[in-house]
């Protein structure tokens, strides 16, 4: 294949770009095999991925970070330096990411606006962090409120990828009592396709996998009822967990240092949220496939689910009441008919107590 040296990087296909960098087609096939594996696709899809990616054009990506901890960017950039997945990131044109870009201030904002104008209707918008609706001043970039920047940038996006639980469902900023009025991207944008990639943080290859899917097929992947790609979030942690046979046999760790824990039994009774959590941790795993929390002996926290932070306790088993057991018994005693009222009362009570218990941290506290 001859590469047209006059072509700019924007005009070249991914296949041409890779070969111009001296990357062989055999290497590219290896990349496609790894991609099919991480996207849980049948190995029979490898030739199709190769064909589609080879002819894909370089997309412009604008990445906005709002109320977030930068953990999602850390997850993406730290875990995958110099790996095969980084090919995708070398290939895309990341035109704006205020944490990673060299430009700052007006230069950075000019880059965002230039990318929007040049690629209107075609660029991918990636968002991490929630958007504060309580007061625009809670989080601003270059004097622009998060809300205004999101609405302005979303107008010309082909699709939006909400990365991390903050952007997808509000996350920790949205946790009770939600002091900033944090909301998710999906609560504000209704006229664009939104792909939710939750997790605190999401698994890096899930982020790259969604980008790869968009490049490969030119469409967004099939999503579940809360906007997550089914290919990564289609099955519960519990269903794919290698400790599942112990659950089926009724063998549970009761504490973190008992015989069951040492033998690797199911962590359900220690509060594992695997049965109600949909994510790819059990198969894709973390740190380049080394392990995942349950494999390290810790229950799943359920971080890819809405309101996981307000679930009532990371170490309380799912079938047990998440509130104080005595209080639950009192409410239950009111009778089955009153159960709904009791739950409502409990929720109200929980909200009030959470509000009361919310003490402001002072400089003195930090210096203790």
């Amino acid at each position: 294949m001859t590469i047209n040296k006059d072509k700019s990087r924007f005009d070249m296909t991914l296949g041409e770009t890779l070969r111009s960098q001296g990357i062989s087609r055999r290497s590219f096939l290896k990349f496609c095999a790894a991609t099919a594996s991480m996207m849980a696709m049948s190995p029979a899809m490898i030739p199709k991925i190769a064909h589609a990616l080879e002819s894909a054009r370089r997309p412009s990506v604008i990445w906005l970070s709002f109320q977030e901890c930068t953990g999602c960017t850390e997850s993406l950039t730290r875990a995958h330096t110099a790996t095969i997945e980084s090919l995708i990131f070398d290939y895309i044109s990341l035109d704006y990411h205020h944490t990673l870009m060299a430009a700052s201030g007006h230069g950075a904002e000019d880059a965002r606006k230039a990318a929007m104008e040049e690629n209107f209707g075609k660029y991918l918008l990636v968002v991490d962090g929630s958007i504060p609706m309580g007061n625009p001043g809670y989080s601003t970039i270059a004097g622009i409120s998060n809300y205004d920047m999101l609405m302005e940038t979303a107008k010309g996006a082909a699709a939006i990828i909400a990365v991390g639980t903050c952007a997808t469902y509000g996350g920790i900023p949205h946790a009770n009592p939600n002091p900033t009025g944090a909301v998710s991207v999906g609560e504000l944008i209704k006229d664009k396709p939104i792909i939710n990639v939750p997790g605190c943080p999401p698994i890096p290859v899930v982020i790259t996998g969604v980008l790869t899917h968009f490049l490969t097929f030119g469409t967004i992947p099939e999503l579940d009822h809360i906007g997550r790609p089914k290919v990564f979030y289609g099955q519960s942690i519990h269903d794919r967990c290698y400790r599942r046979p112990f659950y089926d046999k009724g063998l549970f760790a009761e504490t973190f240092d008992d015989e069951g824990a040492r033998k690797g039994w199911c962590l359900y009774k220690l509060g594992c949220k695997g049965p109600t959590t949909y994510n790819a941790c059990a198969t894709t795993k973390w740190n380049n496939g080394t392990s995942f929390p349950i494999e390290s002996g810790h229950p799943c926290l359920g971080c890819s689910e809405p309101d996981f932070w307000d679930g009532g306790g990371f170490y309380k088993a799912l079938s047990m009441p998440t509130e104080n057991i005595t209080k639950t018994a009192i409410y239950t005693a009111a009778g089955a008919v009153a159960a709904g009222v009791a739950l409502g009362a409990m929720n109200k009570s929980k909200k009030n107590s959470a509000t009361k218990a919310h003490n402001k941290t002072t400089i003195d506290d930090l210096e203790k």
Partner: protein
Amino acid sequence: MSSSTVVPFNIQNGDEMTQNVKPLLHEIKHALDSLIETGKSTIIDLRSIPLAPGEEDKILNTLGQGEVKAQLNALGLSEVNETQYAGVWTVTHYNDEDQIISRFIEVTTMPEILCSQTEDIMAAYSRLAITLDDIVEDNLETN
């Protein structure tokens, strides 16, 4: 934690964990039968199956090592081994940091990744032609 601290952690291994080892080996047997009868190749992605620590090793140990052992240097190392069962190959891809990024069992006469690719052959032709031109030019200058 000091480096000498030993954490007593003894995960059970073998079929007691996921019970996926034997079915997978049977799947390989059926794939081999299909290769014999129809010539159809099969690829099994080991990452797509829940396996407990030690179970993947158990599968690989059962398959063993055969006559062919190849290494590729393509965006990191790749190892392609024919197992002791001819037609059953293991293909393991590593990244630049020598971490496994994918592992497949291929039931085929020759894994595709080992074959020279048309695009690479074309590029090789161009490179060889340039090299020969340079040699001719050098000879002319010398003479």
